[in-house]
């Protein structure tokens, strides 16, 4: 049997081993090769394997849409009928080749993804180019297929109180731009703006050469550049004029405030503060991600509340979920603490959120907890880049927004360098500035900012 002393003797050694510097130069598969082929930015990570992934990241998310619903409709129009072949034929061909195609959009980007067997790279490169350059945007397809898909998406998003609250938090914090609803709510009159012609014009600008980046993992870089160069020649080169253009970037400004949304779907409270922007941009602050890991609320290990301050402070509430995130964008970020579950417990636990933040601001946090938070923040940052889902978009987004591509070694270093003092100062700045508080659900029981000691 292991004696207690042997564990405690080995633990520091294990920690030290884990802190070994990430040797990025010696590990080339972590890095993306960035190049340009016929005016389109291409990033590729050679992994060498039987399958590959190719993603087209276009700077056309809800932040840049001219009218509500445009990014959603553009996403749903991906892989629909083009001038060369019908949506049905695209589906059947992909089925025969055994690939997977999907589209999604975030606040900043529309992402088209294809996963395929390594040999099918040319086919899928051509497919993505075709979708970007010659989708038909037929009015009947909009009314028969796309608008139904959009309504289902709205239902899915707005039946989840957490996503309603996070969306409202963006709206209150940033007003326009980043604050635009990611998916228009069911009561938004978006139908009067969305039409086939309008979308076609928006797409011309959204999929313009300067507005997209291609990110691949798996295939060999020379092949990717070659096929992208061949098929992406015909993308529209620049901006068109007219009211349906991709909206120019306007620097995000944080406002803050309070909003209460009655809902029968469930209860959620979001407490938000101005956070850190994405890595490689001017507003990047590694301490925000460390503070997010420190406040936490979610455990990374089974059957234990974990070390994070919030999960320790709210041990008694077993009917709620708490999570803390730093949502990073190209020029701003939103630091959110989300509570969801039973209304009375949320009301009680939201006081703990502010108490814990005050504790962090006063520096009453064990330095060991900060060390754990740094390790977790580093793990999360690196993992999100390595995972295909998040890593492809993050890399492409970095390319189209003109910041430097992600370098894993630098991120690890930046997170490691965070000091206790920096974490303390960040918490202080949250408490001294204007906060954002969103309550969704049974607003009769959910707290006001005054009640929990926040200034909005």
């Amino acid at each position, binding site marked *: 049997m292991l004696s207690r002393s042997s564990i405690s003797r080995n633990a520091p050694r294990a920690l030290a081993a884990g802190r070994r510097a990430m040797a990025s130069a010696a590990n080339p598969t972590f890095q993306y090769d960035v190049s340009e082929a016929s005016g389109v930015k291409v990033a590729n990570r050679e992994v060498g394997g039987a399958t590959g992934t190719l993603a087209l990241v276009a700077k056309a998310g809800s932040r840049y849409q001219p009218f509500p619903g445009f990014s959603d409709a553009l996403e749903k129009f991906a892989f629909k009928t083009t001038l060369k072949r*019908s949506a049905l*034929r695209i589906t*059947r061909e992909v089925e025969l080749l055994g690939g997977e195609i999907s589209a999604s959009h975030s606040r900043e980007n529309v992402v088209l993804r294809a996963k395929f067997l390594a040999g099918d790279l040319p086919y899928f490169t051509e497919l993505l180019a075709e979708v970007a350059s010659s989708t038909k945007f037929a009015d009947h397809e909009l009314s028969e297929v796309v608008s139904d898909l959009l309504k289902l998406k709205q239902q899915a998003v707005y039946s989840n109180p957490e996503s309603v609250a996070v969306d409202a938090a963006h709206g209150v914090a940033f007003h326009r731009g980043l604050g635009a609803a990611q998916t228009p709510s069911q009561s938004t009159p978006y139908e009067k703006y969305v039409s086939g012609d309008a979308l076609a014009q928006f797409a011309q600008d959204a999929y313009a050469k300067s507005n997209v980046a291609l990110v691949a993992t798996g295939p060999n870089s020379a092949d990717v550049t070659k096929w992208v160069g061949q098929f992406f020649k015909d993308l529209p080169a620049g901006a068109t004029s007219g009211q349906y253009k991709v909206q120019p970037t306007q620097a995000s400004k944080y406002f803050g405030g309070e909003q209460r949304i009655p809902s029968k779907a469930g209860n959620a409270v979001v407490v938000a503060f101005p956070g850190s922007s994405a890595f490689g941009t001017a507003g990047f602050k590694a301490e925000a991600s460390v503070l997010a890991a420190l406040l936490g609320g979610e455990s990374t290990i089974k059957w234990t509340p974990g070390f994070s301050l919030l999960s320790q402070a709210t041990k008694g509430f077993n009917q709620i979920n708490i999570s803390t995130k730093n949502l990073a964008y190209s020029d701003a970020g939103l630091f959110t603490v989300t509570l969801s579950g039973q209304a009375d417990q949320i009301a009680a636990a939201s006081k703990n959120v502010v108490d814990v933040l005050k504790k962090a601001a006063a520096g009453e946090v064990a330095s060991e907890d900060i060390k754990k938070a740094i390790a977790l923040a580093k793990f999360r940052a690196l993992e999100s880049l390595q995972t295909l889902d998040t890593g492809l978009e993050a890399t492409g987004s970095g390319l189209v927004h003109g910041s430097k591509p992600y370098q894993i070694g630098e991120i690890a270093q930046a997170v490691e360098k965070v000091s206790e003092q920096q974490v303390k100062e960040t918490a202080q700045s949250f408490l001294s500035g204007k906060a954002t508080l969103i309550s969704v659900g049974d607003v009769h029981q959910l707290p006001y900012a005054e009640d929990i000691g926040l200034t909005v």
Partner: protein
Amino acid sequence: MSAPSIANYIVKRPWLKRWMTPLANWYTDAAGYRKLGLKFDDLIPEESENVQKAIKRLPAKEAYDRVFRIRRAFQCSISHTLLPANEQIKPEEDVEYLSPIIREVEKEAKERADLETLTLRK
């Protein structure tokens, strides 16, 4: 929707087309649907899936006008009258507005059927 037609045969031969055109114009006018304010595409039988789908795809204004013409023709038919000459459809107004959409729908249905019965040879 289509009945057997020799139209394509005739159109391909210019001399025959020149010869047939006056005859065709006379025949279409004598058919009398224009005097009831209808266009030829209004006469296409609606009772088929493809035509129903095509009618749904009409732009809002076209769909409204179509219903208006059909109701007006109904009234004329009930009251045994013809429209006054200035309200009748002129030959240059009698254009295909629905047939292109029907052809597109039929093409889609055919493509679907073809893909559904696809056999792979490797």
